[in-house]
């Protein structure tokens, strides 16, 4: 099976400033991957390379069987949908509905299919009531969701998200988690930059950690996220639920809130002091 995304010793520099050094990894269809690391570690640069906005200086990037060096971003949009960090720079239509349907329409998808995809994306993110509004009339949090809806409407094989939860409250973060898990079950792969390890633990399964442009870590998130000694040199901190799990030595060391609650309930019987 061809991986949805494959990086083969990719290096990239902005002029004289190195940003990525010999990064290699592959993502399978439906896989949910977190891209972690300090600010400035190279995460956003990697996203630009995957979107085709930059070409690697060395090495190769494959989206399916396409070498990105032979592709332009509008071509890659057939397979990869990218949501960059600031929603305002990606909303450009007079209404939310127009903006969400922009992508599939630009790809030349049939009108009925455009409607279907747009309706589905709006509904999944709870934006149907705002479909007729101008994007700038929405509060910032909903603008972020509108940008995400636009990417979902492209129905890509790979969704690349740069900090999708900044500015969202707990309820909206849960909504995003649900939508992403849904799509992943339908074989859409996810590559998500986030510094919210709680969100990562709830939504994603594998962690790629960048450190000064190098891939320092590539392993299942469940084990990584609770391990303070591994995370600290990479500038990361275990999220509260994982830290709680470790501190109380809960069986299975759950990192998701739901799993942790269940484990607590099971172990608590008979243990708690009044």
């Amino acid at each position, binding site marked *: 099976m061809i991986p949805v995304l494959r990086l083969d010793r990719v290096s990239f520099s902005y002029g004289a400033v190195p940003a990525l050094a010999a990064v290699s990894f592959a993502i399978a269809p439906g896989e949910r991957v977190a891209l972690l690391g300090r600010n400035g570690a190279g995460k956003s640069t990697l996203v630009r390379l995957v*979107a*085709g*906005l930059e070409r690697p200086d060395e090495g190769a990037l494959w989206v399916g069987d396409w070498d990105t060096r032979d592709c*332009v*971003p*509008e071509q*890659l*949009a*057939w397979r990869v*949908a*990218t949501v*960059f960090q600031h929603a*305002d*720079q*990606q*909303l*450009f*239509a*007079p209404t939310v509905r127009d903006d969400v349907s*922009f*992508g*599939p329409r*630009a*790809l030349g998808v049939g009108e009925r299919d455009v409607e279907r995809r747009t309706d589905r994306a709006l509904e999944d993110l709870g934006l149907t009531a705002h479909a007729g509004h101008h994007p*700038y009339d929405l509060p910032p949090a909903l603008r972020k969701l509108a940008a995400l809806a*636009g*990417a979902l409407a*492209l129905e890509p094989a790979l969704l690349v998200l740069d900090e999708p939860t900044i500015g969202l409250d707990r309820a909206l973060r849960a909504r995003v988690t649900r939508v992403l898990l849904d799509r992943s079950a339908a074989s859409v792969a996810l590559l998500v930059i986030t510094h919210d390890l709680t969100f990562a633990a709830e939504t994603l399964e594998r962690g790629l950690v960048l450190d000064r442009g190098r891939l320092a870590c590539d392993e299942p998130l469940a084990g990584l996220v609770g391990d303070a000694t591994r995370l600290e040199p990479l500038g990361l901190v275990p999220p509260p639920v994982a830290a709680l799990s470790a501190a109380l030595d809960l069986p299975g060391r759950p990192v998701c809130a739901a799993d942790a609650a269940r484990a607590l309930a099971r172990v608590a019987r008979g243990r708690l002091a009044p």
Partner: protein
Amino acid sequence: MTGGRLHPFTLLAIAGALPALAWILPAPAGGAWTLVVALALTLTPGASPGFTHIGSSPGWRPGLVVLRTALLTAAPFWLFLLLLHDVPTTIATGLRITTMVASFVWLVATLEPARLVEAMVAAGWSASVAYLLAATISAVPVLKARAQRIVEAQRCRGLSPRGGIAARLRALRALALPLVLSALHEVDERALALETRGLVPGIRRTPLAPPPDPAVEQAARWALLLVCLAALVRRFIVPRFV
């Protein structure tokens, strides 16, 4: 001598004198000479600070970027002129307009907004006024950077900026509206945000690094003004007495 090291007022004077002379001096020779000077300025080494770190295409030397921008910006005007006028008028007016465009493009590329603010504050202008003028001049590279981000976002959603005229026009329209709207939207936010940085009228800003203003440059500015006035007198007033 690099343009970036001249006093900001000198740069403003040059950028103002060239178009003024282009219109005052008899066409087409007047326009042609001033245009040659303006285009030559775009090739000077100093004409790069405003453009280098904001969206300049790799592979072009800085001087050529400015020249290219000036010519590309002026091109549509020539098109309109050809449609409306005969050839001699087109050439005469076209040269003058191109001088204006080239001077402005050169000014934006060379004038560092921070230096302009410092120069104006040192000359006694209020910080808010200085900032407003400098922000207007630096609006161009900011808009350019923003336009690039919008284009990138649109490309990532499948919109191709290439193709035939129809496709390019469509892409341009898809860019124009969001560019203006997002700029306006940000103006709102920025007005509020800049208040938070102490930009309130009535307080004398402390000059941090006022640009040096050698007597030579001051004299040159006066000389430019006199040249413009002399040209004005010679062109319009003297003939009445002859």
